[in-house]
C-alpha cells in the first residue's frame, strides 16, 4: 500500500508542478487584446473557479468518505436510503449556482453579438488550405499561405519560433478601428480563429458569417483553422498584424501600388533564370502538397509533373490548367490566387526542373502570355 500511496503522491505532485513549470500562459486561456476577449477571459476565470471549488468540495468529500467509512471489524453500515429535504436542497442549490453562471454569460453573449457597422470590412475566405483576405473598401485582396517550409516539418531543418504559425502574408489591420469580418469558405467548412481576439467563426461555403474585433495595441496575433478541413487542416494558420492607422494607410497604398507594379512587371523582359527562381518559390508554397518536391506527385490522385507529356510538350494546355483548374479533380484555378508573373514562373519551373528541360521542348512561359490568355477570354 505504501508503494501505491507513493505513486499517488507523485502523480499529484506532477499535476500540480507541471503547470507551475510551464508558466500560466501555457496552461490557460489568453486574456487577449481587446475588450471582448478580456471579458470572455474574465467569464472563463469566473466559471473556472466556481468549477474548481465545486470539484474540490466533491473530491474532498470523497476522500473523507473513503477514509472515514472504510470497512472495519464489526461495522454496522447505516441503512437509510433517502432524505427528501436534503435532496431537494441540493437540487435547488445546483439551480442557483447555474443561474449565477448564466447571468454574466448572457451579457457577454449579447456584447459578442454586436452587429454595429465596421470601419473596415474584410471578407475572409477559407480555401483548402489557405486563407484569402479581401478588403472590401480598398479592393485589396491576397492569399495567406503557411510559410513554414517542408524541411522544418520533416525535421530536417531546426524549427523556427513560430513553427506552423507563420504565413507569407499576414492580414493587416489598423488599431483602434472597428474591424468587421465577413467569413465564408470556398470548398469545405473551415473555422477562423484568433485567440487574442476571442474570434472563432466557422467559414461555411455559400454562407457569410460575421464577426468583429477592435484591437487596442499593435502586435502580431496568431491563430489557426479549427475545423477539420482535409489533410492539411493543421497547416493553415491565421496571422494578423495590427499596426497604427497611419501605418495601415501606408500599407494599403503599397498594396495598391504593388498591384500596378505587377501589371508592369508582366511587360518586362524575363530571363529563364529569373522565372525559374521565382517559380521554385511559388511551387514550394502552392504545389508541393500534392505534386511533391520531386514532381512525382501522388498518383493516381495527384499526377506526376516530372516526365509528364503534358508538361514536356503542351505549353498551351498547361497554362489553361493553371488558369482554369481541372474539372472534377483537386487541381483548382490559380488565376486569381497567383499573379501573372507567378503563374508564368511556376510553369517555367515545372518545364525546367527534374530533368524535364532535357526531355521536353524546354520552352519557357513569360508573364505576358498569361496576361494574353486572360485578355483573350475577355
Amino acid at each position, binding site marked *: 500500500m505504501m508503494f501505491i500511496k507513493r505513486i499517488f503522491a507523485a502523480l499529484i505532485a506532477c499535476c500540480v508542478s507541471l503547470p507551475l513549470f510551464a508558466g500560466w500562459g501555457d496552461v490557460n486561456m489568453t486574456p487577449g487584446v481587446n475588450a471582448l476577449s478580456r471579458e470572455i477571459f474574465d467569464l472563463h476565470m469566473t466559471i473556472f473557479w466556481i468549477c474548481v471549488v465545486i470539484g474540490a468540495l466533491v473530491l474532498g468529500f470523497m476522500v473523507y468518505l473513503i477514509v472515514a467509512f472504510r470497512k472495519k471489524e464489526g461495522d454496522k453500515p447505516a441503512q437509510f436510503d433517502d432524505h427528501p429535504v436534503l435532496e431537494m436542497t441540493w437540487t435547488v442549490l445546483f439551480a442557483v449556482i447555474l443561474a449565477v453562471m448564466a447571468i454574466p454569460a448572457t451579457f457577454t453573449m449579447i456584447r459578442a453579438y454586436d452587429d454595429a457597422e465596421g470601419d473596415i470590412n474584410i471578407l475572409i*475566405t477559407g480555401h483548402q488550405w489557405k486563407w484569402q483576405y479581401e478588403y472590401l473598401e480598398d479592393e485589396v485582396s491576397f492569399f495567406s499561405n503557411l510559410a513554414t517550409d517542408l524541411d522544418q516539418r520533416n525535421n530536417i531543418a531546426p524549427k523556427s519560433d513560430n513553427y506552423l504559425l507563420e504565413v507569407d502574408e499576414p492580414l493587416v489591420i489598423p488599431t483602434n478601428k472597428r474591424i468587421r469580418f465577413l467569413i465564408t469558405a470556398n470548398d469545405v467548412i473551415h473555422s477562423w480563429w484568433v485567440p487574442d481576439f476571442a474570434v472563432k467563426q466557422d467559414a461555411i461555403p455559400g454562407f457569410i458569417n460575421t464577426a468583429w474585433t477592435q484591437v487596442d495595441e499593435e502586435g502580431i496575433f496568431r491563430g489557426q483553422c479549427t475545423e477539420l478541413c482535409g489533410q492539411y487542416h493543421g497547416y493553415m494558420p491565421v496571422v494578423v498584424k495590427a499596426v497604427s492607422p497611419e501605418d495601415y494607410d501606408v500599407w494599403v497604398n503599397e498594396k495598391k501600388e504593388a498591384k500596378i507594379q505587377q501589371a508592369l512587371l508582366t511587360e518586362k523582359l524575363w530571363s529563364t533564370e529569373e522565372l525559374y527562381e521565382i517559380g521554385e518559390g511559388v511551387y514550394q508554397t502552392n504545389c508541393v502538397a500534392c505534386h511533391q518536391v520531386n514532381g512525382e506527385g501522388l498518383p493516381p490522385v495527384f499526377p506526376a509533373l516530372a516526365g509528364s507529356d503534358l508538361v514536356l510538350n503542351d505549353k498551351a494546355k498547361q497554362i489553361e490548367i493553371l488558369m482554369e483548374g481541372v474539372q472534377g479533380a483537386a487541381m483548382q484555378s490559380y488565376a486569381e490566387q497567383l499573379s501573372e508573373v507567378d503563374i508564368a514562373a511556376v510553369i517555367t519551373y515545372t518545364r525546367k526542373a527534374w530533368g524535364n528541360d532535357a526531355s521536353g521542348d524546354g520552352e519557357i512561359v513569360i508573364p505576358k502570355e498569361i496576361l494574353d490568355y486572360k485578355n483573350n477570354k475577355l
Partner: protein
Amino acid sequence: MKAATKTNLKLASLVLGMFCFGFALVPIYDVFCEITGLNGKVSGPTITEYDENFNSREIKILFVTKNNENMAWNFTSEKRILDAETGTAYTVDYTFENPTDYPMVAQAIPSVSPGKGAQYFHKTECFCFEEQLLQPGEKLTMPVRFIIDPDLPSDVPVLTLGYTLFDITESHIKLQASN
C-alpha cells in the same frame, strides 16, 4: 407473448417514425430558417405594404461575390458598398461571364448577414435559385432589385448580401441524362 409482439410493433413503428422524422427535419429546418433568418436565407421576392409614414433611415449595404472552388466565371457586382435608405428600391447589376471554351451552368446562392436582418431584405427581382447557362465567352448582366424593410431592427446598421457562384454543369448534365 402477445404483449411482447405489441411492444415490438410499437417500437418498430417508432423506429420508422424517427427515420421519417430525420428527413422531416429538412423542411422543418427550412421553415425555421425562414422565420428566424438563420443562415441568412432570404424569404424570396415578396414585398410588403408599408405604412405611408414610415421613418426611413440610413443603412450600409455590402455586396460580396464569391466563386466556389473551380468556378472559372468572372462574377462581379457593379458596386461593393452602397449607402442606402430603408424603404427605397435599389438596383444593383451583377455581371457573369464564362471565359472558358465550353458551355457551363452555374447557380448563385444568396446569403444575407447578419441573419436577423435577412427577413427584412426584400428582393423584388433577382437571379437567385435560377440555373444559368452561359456559352463560351458569353457575358451577361443581371439586376438585383431590392427594398430594405423600414422595420429593420435599429441595431443592424449594415447588411451584407453575398452571392456564391457554384459550378453545377456536371449535376445539370446528370439530371438531364436521367430525364
